């Protein structure tokens, strides 16, 4: 949906939504060349438009329609992919940014409506899904003042407590909790681990891998069955490019689908079809959607470069992010890119029948897939070392051999003598995976 009005270039559009507090329909009319097509929301044709969607002049909405449009995309993603069903307990990963805030809001509204239906319904057959919120405190990796981070956490608590009923549990967990030992030890170990990675991009990516592992841990320890990420179209577009640049073309399709069931707790991306620009607009339009900005600083290295590149492309053509995601969407997903089948007999059979369409069979072709212990990306068969040489013992799995080429290059230490020490710094979950990787190797060879 490229902006096809010749007078409205993309930067004009951006300016359009920044003026949302004081809607200036007259200005817009002037931009339009005095277009007699009156200044009404394109959807309801009743209210005055206050903002532009990604489609430029063709998608000028009033506040309500704009929000409903986004909510609609969210809802469709959830229903079509059977992301959330009644017996689920859903953990929303909350970073404080606009995408997080919107996805939390939408999940809440969905839950609220479900609750209302449940209360109004006599037979109470469909229970309402539960929602929890997880915030990962990464302050030990940055130089925030403790005051800053405490204020942020306070704001988050307030946000979550206001999203009730139904009430939601909030988990504020420091990133170093990924290691079984907590507190000072954890902080030290994390610092040592990150210092052991010389590549800037590798460091950033390792942190991301640790983050997702921690979310898995929180979800699993507290009985959650789904993790919801607020990843929007823009973030996914950046990931497409950066994965390509890092040589991860094979595993790319695994990361960008609606559902990712590689993990113990499946991860879902309901905002996949929502561009960041629109989410930002929604947050600025709606006063209740308070955003907690933790200035993590710009990403450096490859991730930062890709971000700026995509930004430049967006300025040239506002629909570029959508095109990138659509193109990458044509790549073949993996078998785990669907929700797992439900075996719970408490779930009504209608729901289970519905789910069957979108689910994977638990005994599917899982066994032949192997994954990188660090980033969990599926490994191409040919990448697997076929030699029967000394693959480590049970105590010291051959980390290097079982990792993907990208992690081998940017995360693992170059010097083999440092490998053992690096291994000792990694969280247990990754080491276990490395061990299984070796064993997987054996089972294939039998």
């Amino acid at each position, binding site marked *: 949906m490229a902006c096809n009005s010749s007078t409205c270039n993309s930067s004009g559009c951006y300016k359009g939504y920044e003026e949302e507090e004081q809607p200036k329909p007259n200005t817009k009319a002037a931009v339009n060349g005095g277009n007699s097509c009156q200044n009404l929301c394109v959807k309801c044709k009743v209210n005055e438009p206050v903002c532009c969607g990604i489609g430029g002049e063709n998608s000028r909405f009033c506040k309500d329609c704009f929000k409903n449009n986004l909510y609609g995309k969210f809802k469709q993603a959830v229903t079509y992919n059977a992301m959330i069903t009644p017996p689920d307990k859903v953990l929303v990963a909350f970073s404080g940014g606009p995408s997080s805030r919107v996805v939390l809001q939408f999940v809440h509204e969905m839950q609220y409506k479900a609750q209302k239906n449940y209360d109004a319904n006599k037979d109470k057959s469909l229970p309402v899904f539960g929602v929890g919120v997880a915030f990962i405190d990464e302050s030990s990796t940055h130089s925030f003042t403790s005051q800053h981070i405490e204020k942020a956490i306070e704001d988050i608590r307030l946000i979550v407590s206001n999203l009730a009923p139904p009430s939601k549990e909030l988990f504020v967990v420091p990133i170093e909790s990924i290691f079984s030992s907590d507190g000072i030890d954890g902080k030290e170990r994390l610092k040592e681990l990150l210092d052991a990675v010389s590549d800037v991009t590798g460091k950033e990516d390792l942190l991301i891998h640790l983050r997702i592992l921690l979310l898995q841990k929180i979800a699993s320890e507290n009985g959650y069955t789904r993790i919801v990420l607020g990843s929007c179209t823009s973030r996914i577009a950046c990931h497409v490019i950066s994965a390509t*640049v890092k*040589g991860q073309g094979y595993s790319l399709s695994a990361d960008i689908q609606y559902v990712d069931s590689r993990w113990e707790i499946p991860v879902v991306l309901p905002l996949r079809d929502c561009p960041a620009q629109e989410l930002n607009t929604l947050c600025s339009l709606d006063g209740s959607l308070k955003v907690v900005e933790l200035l993590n600083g710009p990403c450096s290295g490859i991730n930062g470069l890709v971000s700026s590149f995509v930004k430049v492309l967006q300025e040239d053509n506002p629909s570029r992010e959508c095109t990138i995601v659509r193109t990458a969407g044509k790549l073949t997903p993996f078998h785990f890119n669907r929700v797992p089948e439900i075996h719970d007999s408490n779930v009504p059979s209608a729901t289970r029948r519905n789910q069957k369409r979108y689910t994977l069979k638990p005994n599917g072709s899982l066994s032949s897939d192997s994954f990188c212990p660090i980033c969990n990306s599926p490994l191409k068969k040919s990448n697997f070392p076929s030699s029967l040489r000394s693959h480590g013992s049970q105590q010291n799995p051959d980390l290097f051999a079982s990792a993907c080429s990208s992690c081998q290059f940017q995360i693992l230490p170059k010097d083999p003598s440092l490998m053992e020490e690096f291994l000792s710094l990694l969280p247990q979950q990754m080491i276990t995976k490395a061990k299984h990787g070796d064993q997987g190797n054996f089972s294939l060879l039998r």
Partner: protein
Amino acid sequence: ECFYAVFEEEIHQVILENQLFKPGERIAIGASGGKDSTVLAYVLSELNRRHNYGLDLFLLSVDEGITGYRDDSLETVKRNELQYGLPLKIVSYKDLYGWTMDEIVKMIGLKNNCTFCGVFRRQALDRGAALLKVDKVATGHNADDIAETVLLNILRGDIASFNSEFINIRFSLLLMLGCQNLNKFSTYAYFKKLDYFSTECIYSPNAYRGFAREFIKDLERIRPRAILDIIKSGEDFRISTTTKMPEQGTCERCGYISSQKWCKACVLLEGLNRGLPKLGIGRNQGLNSDGKKDRKRDSRTPSIESKQCGSLEF
């Protein structure tokens, strides 16, 4: 000296490992006069001599009709013909299609002209190759070029191209030097004092490829191996082979290979000749009902466009 030896040896290894040539084959080298094709011509003729590949080498050059650029670079190629002793054939857009790029730009402006040039050049190379009766065409695409193309395909929605980039479909266009980085080429050419032409096409600043090129240059500064990683990603993309490959047929108008009723070049030409510069550009790429009407009428187009391709072997 070591650099030359290593560079030449690497290329020799690529040729051997992939069994690119057989003795007695006739090979056309796509020669633009620029550093990549000049290096390619030089090295290939050297290796042919040194290792006795037994190949008949030719230089094939395309004249798009761009004044201030192509006319100068063609002089370089003519000199190469003498310097390397390789017979030269020049095919021109004017002869093949009746239009020079300058004329095309005058008509359609600076936005989509690269699309025309790319399509026309591919066909021109094929036709030139047919005239020379060669078995293969070698091009001097380097790693940077291929990485740019991979990125462009992602940015512009062209997944189907991934397969054809890496598999030879028509005349085996050989991405021989795809393993070599851009820098090695310029270094080789410069130090060997090879005669080459180093100016960019005057229309290139407006090309979309510029975005990708800029990005890759920045990328190389941070992580040089990223260029090869992009190519590796392109090769590894999981593309369903069943759905993507278009059917190979022939163009009704000129007989060239085509997956549609008319080949792309004919569609574009039709647009030019009818004063419809947008024909063939953008979403509605076919001729649809207009095309059907046209084919029933007598063709007003000059005889060149309806020229058969001659002895093309697919």
